[in-house]
């Protein structure tokens, strides 16, 4: 049954209910995930590398279907969509990839114009104005003529951000947006995430392991470990979390629930000392 648009707007933009996922049945990557992302918020999904957060992002973007449970994004269950319906949903989403994923055979201008040309059927003058608007928003209007190979890492990330907001998305997804950035570029990206979210009236989901950096920008955090959500709350609540793993992660302690040493046989036995 079709919900009325007004009721739909009051619901969370992303609802993950009891979702499990595994590439093989014996090795689940995600287990019983429950989360709801409210409209207008900047939400962080954080955790160690390999904890399943990128898999969760792939489920939200509809690239993977949950093995069990339901993922509703923008009011639609992603697992049930055919190609056309999935593409229709993605037109309302923007995604910033870890290293930008700019098209290397196109200029900065062409990159930002790409989604508009593919979908809009807009006249070229209008596309020009829109591209300039988007590039101005990320501070790179002057770099429109450059090619991606001429950009620094931070600039490439900003151009990719301009491209991902080209169609004024309702939901913006960020995959590790802070990786490999210098402090200035980092500050710029943090500011842009917040500004663009608020000015577009969008919702943002940031998947990252850069916890300290991300805690400064998000409104709410889901903390993941070993395929489960182990903590959730506002940044203050996460910082004060009594959960030992969260505490170790947030404070960057070298030893704790995640041991410093990879499991190994007795040290002495390896060095052929004890009883040898």
């Amino acid at each position, binding site marked *: 049954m079709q919900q009325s648009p007004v009721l739909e707007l009051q619901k969370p933009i992303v609802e993950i209910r009891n979702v499990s996922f595994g590439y093989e049945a014996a090795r689940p990557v995600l287990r019983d995930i429950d989360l709801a992302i409210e409209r207008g918020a900047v939400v962080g999904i954080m955790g160690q590398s390999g904890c399943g957060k990128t898999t969760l992002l792939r489920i939200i*973007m509809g*690239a993977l279907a949950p093995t069990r449970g339901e993922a509703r994004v923008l009011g639609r269950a992603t697992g049930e969509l055919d*190609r056309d319906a*999935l*593409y*229709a949903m*993605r*037109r309302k*989403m*923007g*995604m910033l*990839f*870890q*290293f930008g*994923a*700019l*098209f*290397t055979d196109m200029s900065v201008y062409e990159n930002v114009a*790409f*989604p508009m040309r*593919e*979908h809009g059927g807009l006249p070229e003058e209008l596309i020009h104005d829109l591209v300039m608007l988007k590039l101005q928003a990320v501070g790179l209007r002057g770099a429109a003529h450059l090619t991606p190979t001429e950009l620094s890492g931070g600039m490439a990330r900003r151009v*990719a951000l301009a491209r991902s907001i080209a*169609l004024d998305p309702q939901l913006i997804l960020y995959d590790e947006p802070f990786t490999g950035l210098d402090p200035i570029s980092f500050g710029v990206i943090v500011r842009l995430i917040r500004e663009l979210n608020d000015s577009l009236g969008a919702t943002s989901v940031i998947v990252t392991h850069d916890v300290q950096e991300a805690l400064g920008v998000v409104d709410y955090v889901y903390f993941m470990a070993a395929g489960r959500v182990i903590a959730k709350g506002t940044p203050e609540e996460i910082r004060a979390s009594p959960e030992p793993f969260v505490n170790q992660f947030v404070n960057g302690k070298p030893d704790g629930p995640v041991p410093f040493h990879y499991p190994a046989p007795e040290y002495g036995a390896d060095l052929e000392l004890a009883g040898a």
Partner: protein
Amino acid sequence: MSRLASVRGQIERLGSGLSSQVWRVGFASRFLAYMLLHSGTALRRFHLTIAEIYFAGVLSLVIILVSGLFVGMVLGLQGYETLQRFGASESLGVLVALSLVRELGPVVAGLLFASRAGSAITAEIGLMKATEQLSAMEMMAVDPVARVVAPRFWGGVLSMPLLAALFSAMGVFGGYLVGVQLIGVDAGAFWSQMQAAVDLRNDILNGVYKSIVFGIAVTWIAVFEGYDAVPTAEGVSRATTRTVVTSSLAILALDFVLTALMFTGGNGQ
């Protein structure tokens, strides 16, 4: 017993290797069918395909023309050497033209096309995959098969027959340079015998059909290997190598099959 186990292990490996190859062929066929079904964008927005014709075709021109010239010149030298023993050196034009339009044109141009354009197509698509450009396109609700793969496929398929024709034309010119200008075979005999003996349907069109088939095979292998590449530097390099090896073998095998079908039995040959 251990010998029995090792033989069994070998048979199992052979079986699993074969079945994975069959899977791969099936996957490549489904990929081709999907690409053909989603070729609308490449054909509607034909400038996308024209850009690929430039990359696959125009940029391959130098290597094709130079190779064609030399192959024709060698044919002129070798052909004259043999023909003059039988007092048939005036037939040099026929020998050069038939060798080129029937066999060497499509086959050698196909091999050169596989190594020049096929490898470039695989590397480009593979790198786009490795740098998440294809995923980014998917996230923008743009089908990468329709937008990236299909134009490259059609660009290659349309370029190949033209390149083979230019290779043959250049080869005939090379044969003329050596046979007529250098050695001194009579120019009238060279051209008129060629004109009389080369048949449009049996020789030229059959050569064109071959080049079309080779073009489809090479470009299909190239785009599939690129799209299916493991998205790492090593994966892309392996995929590029596989493109050149597989498409070269495919050209030679297909050439045998096509020649057997075209030039034997009741074809007046």
